[in-house]
């Protein structure tokens, strides 16, 4: 990082900074040179930080009133909703907050896919981000179990049973996860413990994610390397902070819309029925943010195969930086990849839709086609398109397309001419 040496103005500040350079860190974060062309798709990092803090704060409050016991959990959630002062508000913020968190993270991930933010030299940022995403899914799943309603119980049963597909040791692992011979009180207890732990693990990874980001600096919509600081950058504060703040306000309006007007629209009414180990609800469906993976799981008529494919769908993203063979980062200059990108977006949306539908007839066919395309995109399309595609000329600097009204061929260089 190339900022000039920072010296605190006050004596006390200098005293502290000599012993723990917190003020230097603060100055770094304030002055951090940021590409001046960042669009609103880049505001979701800040929005996600807000989501994480919201979940932690509301979660700590909920834990003051919640009882993690199979006989009491359901009643204690109703107690929060009816008796605790503003309990309904805090719980609805927490439960809808999970959905908003995933909405933001999916936009964040697809932004990365479009603008090639996962590519060299930002692979580590991408991988840490995926680890955060995995932990988010674990936290969301365990959190959903805590109210101990029908969906909680049967969701927990189905998901923990995924591990029973592992040959030889599967059943022992499932029993170990449960701490019983079925999903039961020990399961609820440990899920609560882990649900409380995971957000702080995420917080730690977020620090690493931002640290890794601040080494190469932000990618940008043009996707080219820029000099920092230069006429292509602006200081993080106030330029990016104000843009982030505006986007956050819009995001909070949508968030508040869910919390105050349709707090249950993203949930399932079955979860207002207390858990009953003797009756499975007719339609077990996970929360919307897990539906595409659920569709992949169900598209395979084999237990182990389905589980393997579902986990592969996530883990394939970890090697994405090496599957993409294109040197050009931003899809703005990749006419072919850009189209495949949108096909992938549609594909994932379709998988999400069929994940919510019964696994039969046309839905099953759609799920299978969608699953095959999902993997084809990463295994075949990305390497092949990256190799064959003739990319558009990319500008020398961010200032050029902005100041001279578009990248003119004379000043643009062609990157993708084959050697």
């Amino acid at each position, binding site marked *: 990082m190339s900022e000039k040496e920072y010296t605190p103005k006050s004596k006390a500040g200098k005293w502290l900074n000599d012993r723990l350079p917190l003020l230097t860190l603060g100055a770094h974060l304030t002055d951090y040179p940021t590409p001046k062309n960042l669009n609103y798709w880049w505001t979701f990092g800040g929005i996600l930080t807000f989501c994480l803090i919201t979940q932690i704060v509301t979660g700590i409050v909920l834990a003051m009133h919640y009882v993690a016991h199979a006989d009491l959990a359901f009643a204690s959630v109703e107690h929060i909703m009816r008796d605790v002062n503003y309990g309904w508000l805090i719980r609805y913020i927490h439960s809808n907050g999970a959905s908003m968190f995933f909405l933001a993270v999916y936009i964040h991930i697809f932004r990365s896919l479009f603008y090639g933010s996962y590519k060299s030299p930002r692979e580590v940022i991408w991988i840490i981000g995926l680890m955060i995403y995995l932990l988010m899914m674990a936290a969301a799943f365990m959190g959903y179990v805590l109210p101990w309603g029908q969906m909680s119980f049967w969701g927990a*049963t189905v998901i923990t049973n995924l591990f029973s597909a592992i040959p030889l040791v599967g059943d022992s692992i499932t029993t*170990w996860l449960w*701490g019983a*011979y*079925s999903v039961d009180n020990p399961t609820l207890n440990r899920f609560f413990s882990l649900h409380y732990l995971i957000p702080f693990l995420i917080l730690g990874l977020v620090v690493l994610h931002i640290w890794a980001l601040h080494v190469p600096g932000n990618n940008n919509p043009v996707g080219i390397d820029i000099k920092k600081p230069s006429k292509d950058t602006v200081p993080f504060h106030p330029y990016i902070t104000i843009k982030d703040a505006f986007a956050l306000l819009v995001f909070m309006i949508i968030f508040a819309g869910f919390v105050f007007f349709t707090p249950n629209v993203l949930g399932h009414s079955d979860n207002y029925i207390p858990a009953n*180990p003797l009756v*499975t*609800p007719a*339609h077990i469906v996970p929360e919307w943010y897990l539906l595409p993976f659920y569709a992949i799981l*169900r598209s395979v008529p084999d237990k182990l195969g389905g589980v393997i494919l579902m986990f592969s769908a996530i883990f394939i993203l970890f090697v994405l930086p090496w599957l993409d063979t294109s040197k050009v980062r931003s899809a703005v200059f990749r006419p072919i990849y850009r189209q495949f990108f949108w096909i992938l977006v549609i594909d994932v949306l379709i998988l999400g839709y069929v994940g919510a539908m019964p696994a039969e007839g046309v839905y099953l066919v759609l799920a299978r086609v969608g699953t095959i395309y999902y993997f084809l995109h990463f295994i075949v399309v990305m390497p092949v398109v990256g190799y064959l595609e003739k990319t558009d000329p990319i500008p020398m600097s961010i200032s050029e397309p902005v100041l001279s009204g578009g990248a003119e061929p004379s000043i643009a260089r062609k990157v993708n001419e084959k050697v």
Partner: protein
Amino acid sequence: MSKEEKKVNRRDFLFTASYTVGAVGVGAVIWPMIDQMNPDKAQQALATTEVDISNIEPGKSITVLWRGKPVFLKRRTPEEIAEARAVNMDDLPDPQMDEERVKEGKDEWLVMLGVCTHLGCVPLKDKGDFNGWFCPCHGSHYDVSGRIRKGPAPTNMEIPKFEFVDSNTIKIG
């Protein structure tokens, strides 16, 4: 030169020995941390359940809870037993004779875990294409002997350990 080499070897030995002892120590501490998650004594104590079966009419079934899981006890009619035994083994994804799934001489009593072997849902009785059970979660069909016939479940519904204490009582577990 040779003296120096010897010194390095001595140090290597100490390193290896230290790492080994350290690894054993870490393992000794980690194992209790892992094993504490396995079912505790209280859970294991729930391992048997006795069920009174005197009120079950032929063709009817009841569901009881054993170790937190439902167990189906079905008193089958002679027609149902005949149907289960007439099935061609080649039609079964997990071939098993009906005789292997019941106690000899007590052929009318099917006692099995009411847990779908796919992902653990409770199948619905008298549903599905094979006159047995149907799992609503991911569409597995079981026959009148609780054997998997169609769908993603890999195996037949499990028969738990059970015995007849007397003619009216079954002990599961």
